[in-house]
């Protein structure tokens, strides 16, 4: 009933995963597991999910070859999986529609979620509007400032947005606050976690809702170029878009899987969010996985110009894929990502999210390594409209005197 890439009964991928959570939440995690295990085999559920992905989210998303961009990537062929074209502008909608349907199955009326870039918050607010669910979004105060446009979108969609003022005031703290809400309201509330992290069953469930990315992309590659890509590249925050596209190619050993992590101001600066590059195993937000932590096991604050990648943890399956050598993870700095953002905009007329720009910058390096015979599939996880404030600051696009 499950597939060979599923975690064990207790939610472990190798040594990673599990449930390091308060007892108060275990009953809800058990219920969610049971409801999900049933739903994933129920044609009524999968049919409704597929219908929403098609008729509401706009799937399948396109595969676009980026020929002019490729000239800046060692001449390798670059294929973009266009998750930016989904309704709400990123891959996040896939998981949200799946979990919102599950929320209704569980008879819960209230949904809470964390958000970093605001893309998951917008997607969640959207699904809640569609399905008539109450919606509360926790967002770090720093992120409400750098992604103000998305705060407005969520409020317009009817969600309550709570700015979290504790800790680093970013994604990690938004998750803490959402967990506190959940402990108090678990009877009536579903926590719609936005990435493939957290306690079991979230990592496997979120992954499976995003698997469609890899399934589509694999076939689209074969249709377009008659072969599989040499490398699949995706950015890694918590790891959902990456695991979704990687899974389409897990059983193709000749295809390299490369995750691009936020290198911030550079690994040596200490200001980054490169969990798999620099972290060590530990527990955060319910799972054992790689983690940025100090000598005392205190979480170290991550840093990235990209709110969606600014997270000191990562989903457990990525830790497993790293340890067994099936996937590789590399850091990309803020500046490299921003350059790639501008480059894609100017060579292809596609403005990518800053998160996705990390994958594009990684693809440029990989392209130079592979040369003109190489083919790289890049998961373009989201569009950059939300990032205009940050881009404007970084590139000074609208100097004060003009406006």
């Amino acid at each position, binding site marked *: 009933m499950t597939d060979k890439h599923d975690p064990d009964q207790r939610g472990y991928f190798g040594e990673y995963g599990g449930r390091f959570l308060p007892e108060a939440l275990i009953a809800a995690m058990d219920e969610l597991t049971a409801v999900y295990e049933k739903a994933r085999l129920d044609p009524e559920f999968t049919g409704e999910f597929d219908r929403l992905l098609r008729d509401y989210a706009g799937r399948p998303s396109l595969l676009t070859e980026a020929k002019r961009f490729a000239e800046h990537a060692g001449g390798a062929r670059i294929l973009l999986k266009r998750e930016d074209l989904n309704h709400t502008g990123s891959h996040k909608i896939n998981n949200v529609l799946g979990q919102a349907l599950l929320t209704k199955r569980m008879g819960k009326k209230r949904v809470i979620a964390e958000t970093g870039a605001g893309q998951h918050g917008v997607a969640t607010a959207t699904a809640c509007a569609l399905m008539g669910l109450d919606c509360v979004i926790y967002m770090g105060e720093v992120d409400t400032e750098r992604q103000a446009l998305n705060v407005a979108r969520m409020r317009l969609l009817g969600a309550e947005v709570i700015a979290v003022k504790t800790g680093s005031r970013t994604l990690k703290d938004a998750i803490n606050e959402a967990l506190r809400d959940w402990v108090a309201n678990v009877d009536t509330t579903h926590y719609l976690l936005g990435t493939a992290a957290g306690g079991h069953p979230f990592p496997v469930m979120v992954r499976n809702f995003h698997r469609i990315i890899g399934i589509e992309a694999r076939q689209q590659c074969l249709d377009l170029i008659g072969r599989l890509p040499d490398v699949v590249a995706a950015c890694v925050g918590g790891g959902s878009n990456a695991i979704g596209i990687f899974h389409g190619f897990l059983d193709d050993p000749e295809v390299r899987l490369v995750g691009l992590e936020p290198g911030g101001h550079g690994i040596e600066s200490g200001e980054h969010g490169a969990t798999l590059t620099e972290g060590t195993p530990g527990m955060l937000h319910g799972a054992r996985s790689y983690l940025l932590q100090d000598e005392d*096991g205190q979480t170290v604050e991550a840093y990235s110009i990209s709110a969606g990648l600014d997270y000191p943890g990562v989903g457990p399956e990525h830790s497993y894929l790293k340890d067994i050598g099936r996937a590789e993870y590399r850091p990309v700095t803020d500046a490299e990502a921003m350059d790639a953002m501008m480059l894609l905009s100017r060579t292809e007329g596609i403005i990518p999210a800053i998160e996705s720009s990390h994958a594009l910058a990684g693809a440029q390096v990989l392209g130079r390594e592979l040369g003109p015979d190489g083919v790289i599939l890049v998961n373009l996880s989201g569009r950059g409209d939300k990032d205009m404030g940050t881009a404007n600051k970084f590139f000074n696009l609208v100097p004060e005197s003009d406006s």
Partner: protein
Amino acid sequence: MPLLDEGRSSLIGYLPAGFPTVEGSKSLLKAMVDGGCDLVEVGVPYSDPVMDGPTIQAAADQALANGFRLRHVFEVVEAVSAAGGKAVVMSYWNPIYHYGVDKFSRDLAAAGGLGIITPDLVPDEAAEWMAASQAHGLNRIFLVAPSSTEERIAMTAAASSGFLYATSVMGVTGARDVVSNAAPELVARVRAHTDLPIGVGLGVKSGAQAAELAAFADAVIVGSAFVTRSADGESGVAELAKELAEGVRNPVATAS
């Protein structure tokens, strides 16, 4: 020797180690022992305390900002033992995991600590801790919640020693004006599965509330109220301990 006196309901007081400073926390905890706490919970300040409300979060942040390091917890426990008190540690799991579960257990036992309360470690994930606690003679205090199933209560009770921690409300730490009516029901459900003493926590702040809880619980656990009162220094926490200790000695059954 049992962790708690079995003749009457006990008072358990919580304070984070290193709050407001390492030395300050030693004095405050001593004052809590002198004031009448039968057992103290020495908290480990942690960067991501998902089971704690604003009061304890702020205290933990302050402790960390003032230079708390994990090894200080042993000093603080030692100070409690030296003052004639009994101490257990309350910690989120990652700091202990990162230090090394066996090594932490060894060092805690050497400091005179009697056990660990684990708010985000359930018995399902506790194989290493089961072994280390046995090797070093420490009590394993797991939590149960109103949402726990009968099956999980039985399993958790079987894995526990010393006492069982019953969270009386669904929610995070923080003083509340009324004691939850979920508490007596949860205690009754737990009793059906174990002879271990049952401690009830989350929300207690007054002697009257303590007296109410003592009517059905074997121990009354008070945290946020001690953190708040520590603004008044050692005499403040000693006074609160005294009020609460009187409460647990004079249980008042409420009609409900």
